[in-house]
C-alpha cells in the first residue's frame, strides 16, 4: 500500500510557508497569485495498515494543536490524481532525502516493525489568476529545482 499523509496548518493558525511563497512568487516577477496553502506530504509505502498510518500521522508527523492531517490511500500511485491549481514537488530518486531517513527511523521507534519506504514532498495549493503556463513558471522558477526535484502540476 501507498499512503500519502498530508499535513496542513489548522484553520485560524498561521501558514508561514504559504505566506512566504506568495511573496516569493511576486519576488520573481509573477503577478496574480492571491494565496497559497502549503501542505507537507509524506509518502509512506509498505505493508502497513490504515490504523498504523494514522498513528504515524498523528503521533509523528503532525502537531496536534496547530496542524491537521489527511491520509490518502492508493493501491498503486497510478491511481493518484493531482488537484486543480496545485503544484507538488518531490525529490528525484537517488537524491538524498534526509527528512525521509529520519521518518523511517522514527516509525521504527513508534513500534511499527514493518519495513517502509518514505519520500517527502511539498504541495502548494494556489488561488488567484492562474493558468497552466503560469503554474509551470512558478514551479520551475521557484518551487522545484529540476536538477534534484520533479514536479507535478494541474
Amino acid at each position, binding site marked *: 500500500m501507498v499512503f500519502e499523509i498530508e499535513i496542513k496548518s489548522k484553520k485560524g493558525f498561521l501558514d508561514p510557508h504559504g505566506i512566504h511563497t506568495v*511573496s*516569493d512568487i511576486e*519576488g*520573481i*516577477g*509573477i503577478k496574480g497569485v492571491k494565496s497559497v496553502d502549503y501542505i507537507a506530504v509524506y509518502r509512506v509505502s509498505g505493508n502497513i495498515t490504515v490504523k498504523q498510518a494514522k498513528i504515524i500521522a498523528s503521533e509523528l508527523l503532525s502537531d496536534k494543536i496547530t496542524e491537521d492531517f489527511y491520509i490518502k490511500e492508493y493501491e498503486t500511485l497510478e491511481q493518484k490524481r493531482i488537484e486543480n491549481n496545485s503544484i507538488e514537488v518531490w525529490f528525484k530518486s*537517488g*537524491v*538524498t*532525502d*534526509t527528512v525521509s*531517513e*529520519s521518518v523511517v527511523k522514527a516509525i521504527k521507534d513508534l513500534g511499527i516493525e514493518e519495513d517502509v519506504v518514505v519520500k517527502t514532498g511539498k504541495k502548494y495549493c494556489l488561488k488567484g489568476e492562474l493558468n497552466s503556463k503560469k503554474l509551470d513558471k512558478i514551479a520551475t*522558477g*521557484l518551487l522545484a*529545482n529540476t*536538477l*534534484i526535484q520533479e514536479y507535478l502540476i494541474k
Partner: protein
Amino acid sequence: MNVNIIEIINLSDKQLMELSKANVLSLSLVEMKEVQKYFKNIKRNPTDVELETIAQTWSEHCKHKTLTGNIEYCEHKNGKKTVKKYKNLLKETIFRATVELNKKWCISVFKDNAGVIDFDKTNGVAFKVETHNHPSALEPYGGSATGIGGVIRDILGVGLGAKPLANTDVFCFGLPDTKSSEVPEGMHHPKRIAKGVVSGVRDYGNRMGIPTVNGGVFFDKGYMANPLVYCGTMGIIPKNKTDKEVKSGDLVLVVGGRTGRDGIHGATFSSVELDKESDVSAVQIGNPIVEKKVLDTMLKARDLKLYRGVTDCGAGGLSSAVGELGEKTGVIVELDRVPLKYKGLKPWEIWISEAQERMVFAVPAKNKKKILDLFKKENVEATFIGKFTNDQKLTLTYEGKQVACMEMAFLHDGVPKPTRQAMWKEQNIKKQSSLKVSNATLSSDIKNVLSDINVCSRDCIIRQYDHEVQGQTVIKPLQGNSITNSGPSDAAVIWPYTIVKNTKKAIVLSNGINPEYGKIDTYKMAASAIEEAMRNAVCVGADPEKLSLLDNFCWGNPNKPEILGSLVRASQACYDLSKGFSIPFISGKDSLYNEYTIAGKTYSIPPALLISAMGVIEDVNHTITMNLKDVGNDIYILGITKNELGGSIYSKVKNFKGGLVPSLDIKVSKDLMKKINTAITKGLIESCHDCSEGGLITSISEMAFAGEKGINIDADLIKTDDKKMTLAEILFSESNTRFIVEVKPENVSGFEQILKGHIFSKIGQVSNDKNLTLISKKSKVLIKENITNLQKAWQKTLQW
C-alpha cells in the same frame, strides 16, 4: 567487477583531451600527458579508479594549481613595462609575509584544514573560511548548507579536532529585482538564489548548535548566474591537540554519513565554467543532524586519545581525505567496506563521492574496539575501511582484487606546473567632476544611500540565524536599544567561558570585502578589504597587533592574462599590507573559474577578495558597541577625508563616472588603530563605528538610530586633504582609516592626549531631540532629519 581499464598509453594529444572532457576530469593536455608518461613507465594502462583519483587530487580545488603555479606577470605602468616571474604566487606573497613575520603566537598556518593561533596558555583558536559557489548556483539551499557543513568539518578536522564556536557567512548575489526575462534559461533568479542560500546556511548552522555571528551581503549584477557563498567557522582547540601523527599500521576509520552518488566530480567541476548543461551529480545535500552527532562524539574520542589523525571528507571525498592522511606513509583501502546509501556504486564513485558529513580517522590498532564502541553508543556509523602502510603507495581493492596502485609521490607532487601569463595595465583614473548638490537633494541623498542595496539593513537575514546559541556571543551582529532600533555591528565577539573556565579573554571576528573597488583596481580593493576587516575588529575593542587574517579569492578564469594580472595585484597587496601592518595570514582559499556562459557569450564575475580577521581580546570587559550611548557626549571623526569616491555607493546612487578608489597609508593606519585600542582599553570611548560604504554620514546615521539619539554635526570641522571638496564629497567619500567615536566630556582630554599626532576633530555632540542635524556655514547648508526616518530608509529595502 565494475572497473574499467582506460586506454591512455597509445592516445594522441587530441584523444587525450577528448578523454579528459568526456570523463569530466578537467585535466589539461600537459597534465594528461604527464599521466600518460607515468603509465607508460609502469607499462600498463590505468583503471578508471586511478584516473579519477589523479583528476581529483590534481584538481584546481585541491591543488590550487594557479596560485601555486608559475606565473609570468607583466606590468605596464608610467609607460614602462616590467616583467616579474613567480614560481608560486601564494608562497611568494601571502604565505611569505607570514613566514617573514614569524609570529610566535601562530600555531599552525597554511598546512592544515584551518589556521590556528594562540588563545591562552593551553588553548588555540582555529579559523577557516571556504567558498561553495558552484554548488550554490545549481542548488542554492543544498549548496550553501553543505558549504557551512563543510567548513565546520574543516574545524573538526584541524589538528585532532577543534570545537566549533561560531560561524560567519558572506555572500555576493545578483540584483534581487532583476526582471525574470533577463535571467538566462536554466539558471535561477538571483532572489531565489539569495533566499535559498540564506535558508541553507540558517538551517544547517542553527541545527548544528553553532551561532552565526558575523557576515555580509554584496549585490551586483555580475553575480547573477554565479553567486559567491563564503562560509566560515571558528573553533577552539587544546594546544596539545594541534598536530596529527599518522603511523604505519594505523587503521583507516570512516565516520558519519554514508556514501552515495552525491557530488561526484565536485572537485574537478570547480575548474569548469557554469553553463546550462552543468553536471547534475555535482549537487550535495546536507544532513546537519548526522554532523552534529559526529561532532559531539569525535570530541569525546579526541579527549580519550583514541586516534592519531583526522581530516574531513570535502572536495574529492575519501580519495582526498585518505590520501592526505596517508601522504607520508602510504595506505591500502578496501572500497567494498565503505558503507553505502544504496547499491550500484562503482568503485571509482565510492572513492571520489562527495557525500556529506563524513570524517576519516587514523586509529592505532589497539583502540579499534574502544573507538567503535564509543561511536556506536552515540548512534554514529563508524567503519574501518583500510590501513596505513609504509610503502608510500596508494592501494585500493574491491572485493579482494586490486583496482588501483600508484605512488603517493606521483599523486601529490606529480602535477606539472605550466606557466601562465598575467598582465596589468595602469589606467588613468581621475577624480570625478566636482559634485555640487543642493540642500534638499543632499537630504534625500543621505536617505538614498542608506537605502542602497549594499548599505541597507540585513536584519531580515541576520534574524533568521541563531547568533546566541552556546550563550557566548558578547557582541552580536545587530546593536541598538531595541528590535526596532538597531544598527549594524562592526564585528562579533565570542567569550568562550564555557570551554575555558574563568577566562577573561574573548575572540573577535570581522570581515572586509568590496568588489566595487576591484572593478577599478584590485590592489586597492585588497588593501581596503584588509583595512576594513581590521577597522571593524578595532571598533569593538580588538588589538590591531594581535589580529590574524584569512584570504578568500573568488576570481574569473585565470587563463586570461588580464584576470590573472588582477589576481597577482591583489596577492601583492596582501603581502604589502600583511607586512606593513605586521599581521599574518594564517589560512586561505581560492575559487577560480567563476565565469558563466549565456547564449555563447562568456561573462566573468567581478573579482572578490574576502578578508576575514580573527583576534584575541585580552579582557572581554573592554569591548564596546557602535550605538550612541548618552546625550551630551562629544562626537569625533578620526582620520582624514579625501576626495575618494571611485567605486563608492554615492557614485552608484548618483550615477557618475570616475573618481579615485580609496588609498591607504599603512603607517598612519596602524598607529591610529593602536591608539584607538588603547583608548577603548582605558575606557575612554563609549561607542565607535568605522566609515566604509556610504561614507561618514552613513556611519553617523547608523550610530544615531541604533542608539535612538539625536546628533548635531558641524560639517565644516571635518578635516579634509583638499579645501575644494564639496559637502557632498565630504559626506559620501569612502576614504579608509576613518572612525566615528563617541567620548564622554570628562574623558575628552585623556582621549585627545592619546590621539596626539593624528588627524582628528571634534565635530559635534549627541543631542536629545532625535534629529540628525548637520550644518555647514561654508556650504550654506542646514540638514535636519528625524532619526526614525533615517532608520526607515535603512530598513525598507530588504524586507524578505
